[in-house]
Every structure is written in structure tokens, then in C-alpha cells.
């Protein structure tokens, strides 16, 4: 599966980013480069989970407003700054769900085909709709999150682990267990 995330960071990237965060704590205008860097990622994360584009844009702004307000509390833990932003974004998305009493699941057929590839299932036409139904209506929230991140957002297991605060290996094992489960359900 092709992973398309721009999330990966080298140790040098992390150090540079941390320096910007520290500078922004003293001078908020310096947060601009982090805003620029992560705006699209955070927007796409939110948009993947909500129904309305405008709502996603509004929520993205809120994530950055909240991040700036709480920047003084941010502590560097050796992972990209984005993982902290994703946590705020996740909370923002949950607020939307609570307000709307509804969770939006955006499914991409290409992602579904990717899942079937991993499941070594070739009858993609036969099972496509069934998998869409299961993902959309039956998968528990924690499993849905993993599937969303891996197959619809094409994130690496390392990144999924950092966002969900689990190990890379754990993310991988859990994902493949879900695929196994799906395989059994559809047959």
C-alpha cells in the first residue's frame, strides 16, 4: 500500500520544530510556520471525519486557536508536534459528534480495494459494498479509527501509533486483526 502521509520527521526536523515551538511560546507570531506546515494535514484529518467542508475549515481554525492558547502547556515528547495537534483535532471532532449526535464516516472505494488487497481477497466487486456497510455501521469506534487512518488516510503504522499513543507494532497487529475479522465476516 502506498503511504501518502507527510508526517514523517527526522531527528533534525524534530529538533528544529521544537525550537520553533519554544520561540512561539514567547512570541505567538512565530507559530505561523507551524500553522503553515500543519494546516492542510489537520484540515484533512478533520474533513475525513466530518460531513461538511465549512465545518471542517472552522474546526481546523479552532484547533490552531486552542493549540496557541495551550502552547505554554506543550511538552516535547520526542514525537512530531503534529501528534499534539492531532489530539486537539480529535477532541474538536468529538465535540462536533456530540453536537450533531452523529459520526460521519467517509469511505473511499480505493481504500476499500486496498483493504481487500491486504486481506488477499480478489473478488473486489462482490465484497466492496459489504465491507463499506461493515465499516460504516458495525465496526467499533477504536477499530474504525485504525481502518480510517491506515486505508483512507494512508498513514504509516508509525504515524498511527504516534497519533493514537500506541506502539507502531501494536497499531500493526490491531489493524491486521481487524482485517482478519472482516475477512471472516464477509465470507
Amino acid at each position, binding site marked *: 500500500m502506498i503511504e501518502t502521509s507527510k508526517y514523517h520527521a527526522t531527528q533534525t526536523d524534530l529538533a528544529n520544530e521544537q525550537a520553533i515551538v519554544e520561540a512561539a511560546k514567547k512570541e*505567538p507570531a512565530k507559530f505561523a510556520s507551524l*500553522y503553515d506546515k500543519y494546516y492542510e494535514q489537520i484540515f484533512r484529518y478533520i474533513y475525513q471525519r466530518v460531513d461538511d467542508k465549512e465545518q471542517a475549515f472552522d474546526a481546523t*481554525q479552532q484547533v490552531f*486557536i486552542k493549540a*496557541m492558547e495551550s502552547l505554554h502547556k506543550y511538552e516535547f515528547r520526542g514525537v512530531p508536534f503534529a501528534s499534539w495537534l492531532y489530539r486537539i483535532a480529535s477532541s474538536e471532532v468529538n465535540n462536533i459528534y456530540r453536537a450533531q*449526535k452523529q459520526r460521519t464516516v467517509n469511505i473511499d472505494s480505493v481504500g476499500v480495494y486496498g483493504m481487500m488487497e491486504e486481506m488477499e481477497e480478489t473478488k473486489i466487486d462482490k465484497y466492496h459494498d459489504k465491507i463499506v456497510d461493515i465499516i460504516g455501521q458495525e465496526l467499533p469506534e477504536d477499530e474504525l479509527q485504525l481502518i480510517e487512518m491506515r486505508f483512507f488516510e494512508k498513514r504509516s503504522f508509525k504515524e498511527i501509533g504516534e497519533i493514537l499513543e500506541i506502539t507502531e507494532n501494536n497499531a500493526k497487529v490491531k489493524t491486521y486483526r481487524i482485517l482478519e475479522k472482516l475477512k471472516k465476516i464477509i465470507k
Partner: protein
Amino acid sequence: MKRKVNLNRPEISSAEIAKRKNFDSVLKQSANVGAKPLIKKPWFLSSVVAVTIAIVTTVVLMNQDKKSDQHVENQEQISSSDSLALLAFYKEEEAKPCIAPPIKGLNVHYTTFKVIAEKGATLDYKTGSKIIIPKNAFADENGKLLKGEVELRYREFHDAVDFFVSGIPMTYDSAGVKYQFESAGMIEVLAYQNGKQVNMAPEKAIDIEMASDYKGTEYNFYKLDTMANNWSCLGKDKVKANPEKSSASDIKKEIVSIEETPEYKTFETKKVEAKKEKEVQMAALPKPIAEPAKPAQVKKGKFTFNLEVDAKEFPELSVYKGLLFEVGDENTNFNKSMYDITWDEASVKEGNKSGENYNLTLKKGLKKYDIIVYPVFEGKNYETAMKTYQEKFNKYKVTLDKRIADEKKAEEVYQAKVAEYQRKQEELARAYKQKQEEAYRQMETTQKVMRAFTVSSFGVYNCDNPSVYPKGILCVANIKNDLNKNLLCYDVYLVDKQKNGLFTYYRNPLTSFSFNPKSKNMLWTVEHGVLYWLKPEQFSSITASMKMQDLVLSKVDQKFENVEEMKAYFNF
């Protein structure tokens, strides 16, 4: 929690996302929220504790006085400091002038006409409306007729955005009964000379023919009394046909076909991109290893030559050990004696059946023979060669099958994408057709007309129909922002796209908020000059209940330079 599933929702481009970046707004808002308001300072809070209980009671009663028949089961607790601030805010809002535009700098602009007072004029407004000013129609404050140039300022209001930005009240109190106006259009006409407002001369009147989308006769003619903060009914206007408006058939001619729309074309491009993507994927697939040649066994009674060949030149011949070249039946010139000759030179070239046979050239002195030979193996060498061949063939088969499967998969993904794009195009075409038909129907029902009336003083007039709040779902609503804080707002406007009005609710929470769930609705309110809105799709989660429901309004980040921008934003 209920889930909504969207399948293959169109992607948003990075360019579109980048356009919405607004760090300045983030910077500003984070700074604002960070600062503590006066009422949140500890000393302020402690000083008001003593009056808290009385004020909370008052606020609740004040909220209920207009709608005493409503029962609020779950009134939200209001903190003491908030209560004081709220009371002060209400007082301030109620003291505002009759016409109070809610957003600074955003209003319907006046069109200014220069009129020579003693001549009068017939003026054409941009909407097609006509203003007919008789001779000597202007007078000063003492009733003395004015001469010379007079500036006539004129504007019209035709939809919810116009009504909203103008701040002109859309409620009507008729003998204590409150109505909400549905409008066929509204105008304001004012006159100035040398920068000073002037009056209409006694016994004079201006005739106005206002272009309107509404041809009904249920509308009355009203003038806004800004002192009484209410409208005065002046009777009925006259409805005349508007010859200048385009007919439905004229508009039909101007409509482009769906195939020419950018949305439709996008999917054509996507199809081409999907094809290219498939081709790139196929080209990137690993090539299967070459199919190994199957070794042949020497036939009984056939002549064979044992020759050493260059492995570099003939890699396919050097795969197996014990290679022999068998003389083919087609060599009619070959005889047994040739087999006994010690040849000076023997060379092998690829034969006429590539990979199957070879040309063996034998030379002795000046004599030269060309023989077609076939690679063969004998005895154990043949068995070993067959075993090696089988292993190699199995490997080859695996890579070949994988290649075929990969190609099939890429093709299936491509076909699925194309089918999906096709489906979306068909969907677009269906929606487009439906929209067109709806537009034609609308054209028929909202036939453009001229609503004619006469005004004998300057001010704001409307052709409106007193109506009530839309019905369907009735609830108690608490207006919040997306930071889960109550919005400090006084007027909350319901926009119902099926009705041309602006249904005004007062004070947050709204103790009896009703709307038509079958219509497309929006809610607008303004806090500290910032516009917030409840989007149409959010109305579906509002339930009919007397329990307090939080309505989370989103801030409208876009700064509207003019009314047209606001109309475009809200799809008017």
C-alpha cells in the same frame, strides 16, 4: 452514536485548502480568548455575589415574559457575573435605534440621483424600478418649496440578506399581536440638499414602481415609523406586469449543457488521470522472468553433435548440462558419412524457429554444410535437465501469475474508478436537470412584476405580508459558539428559504424556537459584530422538545466587503 456514511466524496485540492489559511485570525482569536474580561476578575465576581439570586430570577422572568405559554423544563443555570453582564447587554440592545445594522460597514448601498426640484424627474433604478418625482416635490423644514439640485438617495431590499444587513425590523405589532413579515420588497427613499435632509412638499407625492419577484396580492403596503419602532399600514399596493424581465424561454437559451460545466468536466479529467495512473502502475509492475525452454530428449536413430557453445552468446543453451544438437528431419542433404568427417570448423547460429532450432555450419577446406539442428539431452542428462526445467518453470509460473493478477487488479481498480466517475457524472446530470426544471417552475410562480405605490413622505416602505414563525418543530434552543460558550446575542434570525423574510427571535436562549424542518433553514446572529450561523444541515438534529437544546453556531470567518459577497456565501 448514529453514523452517516459518505462513499467516494470528492477530494478537496491543496490549493483550496491553502486558500482558507488565515493565521492572523488564529492569532487574533487566541489573543482575545486568552484575555480575561473584566467580569471574570475575582474582585468583580465577589462584589456581585450578593445580588446574584435576585438577578437570576429576573433574567429568567424577562426571558419568559414574551412567551409565557412556553414551558422551559431545563433552563440553563446562569452564573452571577454572566447575569449582570446579560442584563446590561439587553438594556443596551433595547436602547438601539429602530434601524440598527448588525454588522459595521456592511449595508445595502444607496443609489444617489440628482434631481432639479422645480423640474422633477423619472428615475430608473438598477433593478428596473421607476421613481417618478413630480415638479416642486421637495420642501424645507418650514414647508417652503425648494429650488435647485436635490440629492435623492434610494435603495431596495429584496431578500433575507438585504433585510439582515440593513437592520430594518421585520416584525410588525398589530394591536399587541406580533407578526413576522414576509416581503415582496422594501425600499428606502431619502432626499438631501446641501447635505441637509429635506422633506416632501405638502400635497406632493412620489410614485414608485418597484420591481419585485412576488406577484401575489396578499401583501400590504407599510411605512416604518422609526419613532414608534413599528410599521404603519397604508393599504395595498398595485401589481403591474414588468415588461423588461426576461421570459423563461429567454433564460432557457442561455443555460449551458451539463457537459460544458466545470463540475462535469472535472470527472472527464479524472477518467483520463485514472487511465494514466493505471498505465503507470502497470509499467511499474516487475517483469516476469523469461520462460525457460523445455529440454527435449534425443530421438532414437537420430544423429547428434556434441558441441561446446558460448554461454554468453546462447544463455538458453547453457542452462542444462550435457547438451547435444540433434540433426533435424528437414536436412535432406545430410548423410551418415558426414558424421564421420573430422571438420575444421563448426559454428552455431540461431535457426528459423527462434529458441527452438539452430543452424549448424560445418566447414572442411572449401566445403561448407549448413544443417538445422535441435538442442536435445540424453539419458541422465535429460532427466536432470527436466528436473531443473520444472523448478525454473514453477518459479516462472509464480511470477507470471502474480503479474497477471497485478495487472487484473490495476485494471479492476481503474474500471471501478471510471464507473464511479461515470456514476457521479450521471448524478450531476440528474441534479442539473432537476435544478433547471425547478428554476423554470420558480420562474413561472415568481413572475417578475412591478409593485406600484405612492409615498407622500421620505422613509422606509415595504410591500409585506404579516405572517407567523414557520412551523413544524418547536423547541427551546440555547445558542452557543463552537467553543461551547453561550453567545451573547439579542436578535437571532431564522432564514427559511421557502419564505422571503427574516424571522426574528429575541434573547438567548430562545424559549420557543420553531422552524419548518422540510425547508432549507439557517440561523444568523451577531456577537460583538461577528456573524455566526447555524448551517442548514444542522437543523436535522434539532428535535421537537421543551428540553433545552444547544445549537452550536459557527463563526463566519469571511469578512464580507459588500452585500453581494454575503449573498454568494449563503447561496442567495
